[in-house]
C-alpha cells in the first residue's frame, strides 16, 4: 500500500486536523469519481477506480489514531508483528483489566469506570506518539522504539475498549 500520508497529501504527523483530512478525502474522491471517467479510455478509467479505492483505504487508516500510528512507524520501516512479545508490566496490567472486566461485565457502572480508566491510558499513549512524530526534527531510533512500545500498548487498550463496549451493548 502506498504511504497514506502521500496519497492524501497531508503532513506526516501524528496530530492532524480531522476536518482538513475529511475535506481532502472528499475533494480527491470527487476528482476520481467514475462519473468523470465515463468517456475515458478503459485503462484510464480503471486507474482512477484503483486510485479511488486506495484513497478510501488511506483515509480510513489516517482517521483512526491507532492505524495512523502504524502508518507512521511503517514509514520508518517499523511494525508490530505476531512474534513480538509485550513487556511483563503491560501483560500484568492488561490481565488485571480483563479480569476486572470479566467480573464487572454485568454492572454497567463498573464497565464504564474501567473504560474511562483505559481511555485515559490511551490518551497518554497518543500524547507520547505526538511528542515523537510532531517535533521539529525527525525521530531518532530511541524515540521510534518508544513509539513502537506505545503502539503495542494502544493495541491492547483498543482491544479492551472494544470488549468493554460489547459488554455495555449486551
Amino acid at each position, binding site marked *: 500500500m502506498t504511504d497514506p500520508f502521500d496519497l492524501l497529501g497531508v503532513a506526516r504527523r501524528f496530530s492532524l486536523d480531522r476536518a482538513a483530512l475529511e475535506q481532502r478525502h472528499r475533494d480527491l474522491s470527487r476528482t476520481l469519481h467514475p462519473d468523470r471517467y465515463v468517456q475515458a479510455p478503459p485503462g484510464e478509467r480503471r486507474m482512477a477506480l484503483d486510485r479511488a479505492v486506495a484513497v478510501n483505504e488511506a483515509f480510513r487508516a489516517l482517521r483512526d489514531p491507532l492505524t495512523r500510528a502504524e502508518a507512521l512507524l511503517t514509514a520508518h520501516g517499523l511494525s508490530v508483528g*505476531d*512474534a*513480538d512479545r509485550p513487556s511483563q508490566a503491560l501483560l500484568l496490567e492488561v*490481565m488485571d483489566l*480483563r*479480569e476486572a472486566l470479566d467480573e464487572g461485565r454485568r454492572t454497567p457502572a463498573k464497565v464504564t469506570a474501567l473504560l474511562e480508566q483505559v481511555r485515559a491510558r490511551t490518551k497518554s499513549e497518543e500524547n507520547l506518539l505526538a511528542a515523537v512524530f510532531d517535533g521539529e526534527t525527525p525521530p531518532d531510533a530511541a524515540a521510534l522504539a518508544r513509539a513502537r512500545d506505545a503502539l503495542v500498548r494502544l*493495541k*491492547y487498550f483498543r482491544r479492551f475498549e472494544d470488549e468493554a463496549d460489547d459488554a455495555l451493548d449486551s
Partner: protein
Amino acid sequence: MAYSEKVIEHAENPRNVGTLDKEDPNVGTGLVGAPACGDVMRLQIKVSDAGVIEDAKFKTFGCGSAIASSSLATEWLKGRTLEEAATIRNTDIVKELNLPPVKIHCSVLAEDAIKSAIEDFRKKQSAKRSS
C-alpha cells in the same frame, strides 16, 4: 474463519480455566501475549516435590484458537514431569487442533507460556534453595 471441531470444542468447553496462587513456591506462572491481536495468556503449573505437574490452570483473553491452544496445553501438562513438559512443541498443538496457518502463532504463544511457567517455577526453587 472456519474453526476445526477440536478448536470449537475447547473454546466452548475450556479445560482447567482458573488461577493458582502465584505466591506458592510450588507454582510456576507464565504470562505471555501477542500484541498484533491484543491477546493475553496466563498459564500456571503446580509442581510436586517429585517434580511432577499435579495441576495446571490457564486464563486466556483472545481468539478461539488461543483459548483452545492453552486449554489443550493444560490438559497435556497434568501428570508430566517438568522435563517431559518442556518437550511440548507448538507443532504438536497445531496438529492436534488442526490450526490453519494464520493461527499458528496462537500455538507458539501456548508453547511460550509453558516455557515461561517452567522457568518461573525453577527460578522460585533456586531462590528457595539459596535462601
